[in-house]
């Protein structure tokens, strides 16, 4: 369940960012987002799994609680909730102690990994001049 909470936050973070190209159709953008969310979630989960236990356990506990809240609020597992449902779950979960740390960690790792997903990184067009 904690992995679904991670994926929810990853999806929320990257859905607000521009995709690889504005010329892509909305279907292709959705496919890109789904694929990027999968790839980044795996990275974030692995990072959390390899943290020392005194950081890992509280994070997984909060993530699991977020999943439980999601189920109670929406009646669905977190991977099946709508954008509005996701927002409600995050709003209620933000009242949990340490949720802020959990959210910050996942969002930071997401932003770190997002630009390594093929095709999204902006590049400097050329050198400037003095």
């Amino acid at each position, binding site marked *: 369940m904690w992995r679904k909470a991670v994926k929810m936050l990853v999806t929320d*973070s990257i859905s*607000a*960012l*521009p995709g690889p190209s504005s010329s892509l159709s909305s279907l292709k953008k959705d496919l890109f987002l789904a694929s990027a969310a999968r790839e980044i979630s795996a*990275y974030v989960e*692995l*990072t959390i799994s*390899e*943290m*020392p*236990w*005194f*950081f890992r356990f509280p994070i997984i506990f909060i993530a699991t609680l977020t999943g439980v809240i999601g189920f109670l609020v929406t009646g669905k597992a977190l991977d099946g909730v709508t954008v509005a449902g996701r927002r409600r779950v995050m709003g209620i979960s933000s009242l949990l102690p340490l949720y802020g*740390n959990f959210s*910050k*960690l996942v*969002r*930071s*790792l997401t*932003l*770190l*990994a*997002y*630009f*390594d997903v093929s095709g999204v*990184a*902006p*590049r*400097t*067009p*050329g*050198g*400037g*001049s*003095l």
Partner: protein
Amino acid sequence: MTVKACENIIADPNGLSGSYECEYLVVGTGPGGSVAGAKLAAAGKDVLFMEEGGYHPTESYTTDISRMISTLYRDRGILPFVGKPAIAFAEGRCVGGGSVINGGLIWRTPPWVLEEWESRHGLNGYDTESLKKHFISIEERLNVNKHKIEVDANLDSYRLMQGAEELKWKFVLAPRAVKDCINENYCPTGCISGAKQSMLQTYLKSAASDGARVLSNLRADKIIHKNGVAREVRALVSGGAQGRRPVTVKFDKLIMACGPLQTPHLLRRSSLSKTAGTSLEFHMNLKIAARFAAPVNAEKGTIFTVQVQEFEKEGVLFMASNYRPHYMAMTLSHFGAGAVNALLGDYEKFALYVAMIRPRSKAKIITSLDRRSPLVRYKLDPSDVPYIKTTLARAARLLFASGAVELYLPVAGTMPVKSMKEFKEALSRADAGNFEIISVHAMSSAPMGSDPAKSVVDTDGKLRGFENVLITDASILPTNIGESPQGTVMAFSSEIISRHLG
């Protein structure tokens, strides 16, 4: 990725046997360990290096930043100092240690710091003149030179220099350990062009050619000792087909250079010291994103080209920082997606700067929770809050004078500011918990000194109570240095080994 190592470097964990013997065991291959081991090997000693991280030479580096951070950093670059606010701390864990993932800055120790260490901590023989020969040798070996600002690169640093000139603030070109740097801007994740002169390319290479052996993927778990003599290190192999398995290394003399967190962690859990790790000091980095009216193409400038030193004696330094969308987006994450989108839309007009400060806050290393990683806990010294605010105000002044039109401050809950007036309003509402702080320099966790009650090692680098244990990493610096510590650590390591060899 499996990379073929040179003959004396065992890069594959499957290639490690169950036991080793040597005259000198050096635990850690960062700057402090590499200099010590290379110097001993050059003197004909039988040296064996033990490194927890893997062997990752230049040809294995990629531009995939998240992957490289996972490969080259301890705990994948995520190691918070617990406190208010939590501080994100990062350190290397690979053959070559911090030198593989830092900016390659090699500063001589500021003279007033050495004077303080001499007068207050009894460090005789570590004055500017005595250390000079070590610095000259290190600088020559690492090809240390003042990085130039090219016509088509380093505009972010050039703007900073212009701002300092306008304010009549002192600045210098930074001395860096590079050969033919082409501003690839991947210093923190392994220099892909091989320009940076890390330990892997310099001291470890010469140590290996002088016969030293390097065992990678091997974590020192416990030091076995009796009657004030350390005898063997019990270690664990990480990775490899056979999983975690024990390896024993017997030695005559032990050089500890596991870094400012792991050295006291190992000392404490092996019962070699009770006081190590009780007063860890560290630098705080405050990152500020600046938007300029015209492109600065900061991605085409290497880090730390110019350093503004106007407030150096107060422990405050300003520099351009590494610029990639990953770092920028993380820096702006507390502003929300809108700011990240603004960055992506105006990428070439943004640059990232860092204010590095020498705080009074100290941390403690708690070793009892986990054998692999210590918990680091700190308490923000009340004097650091106005110190941080003053530093940010100076940074804002400097960056506006440099031509920035908008600043994104490392303070949660603030909006981007376009003038000093907006800056003051934004900062007036900030308290300690709002600061976004990172750190990449820790030190003084096993301080050197002449007073046995206040120091963990004596002035010859010997661990108190043990004749055959030397410490040569940043742990031994008596206090927070206020400058990138690699040069100082290397010079101290060289001096300690010189004294040891006599």
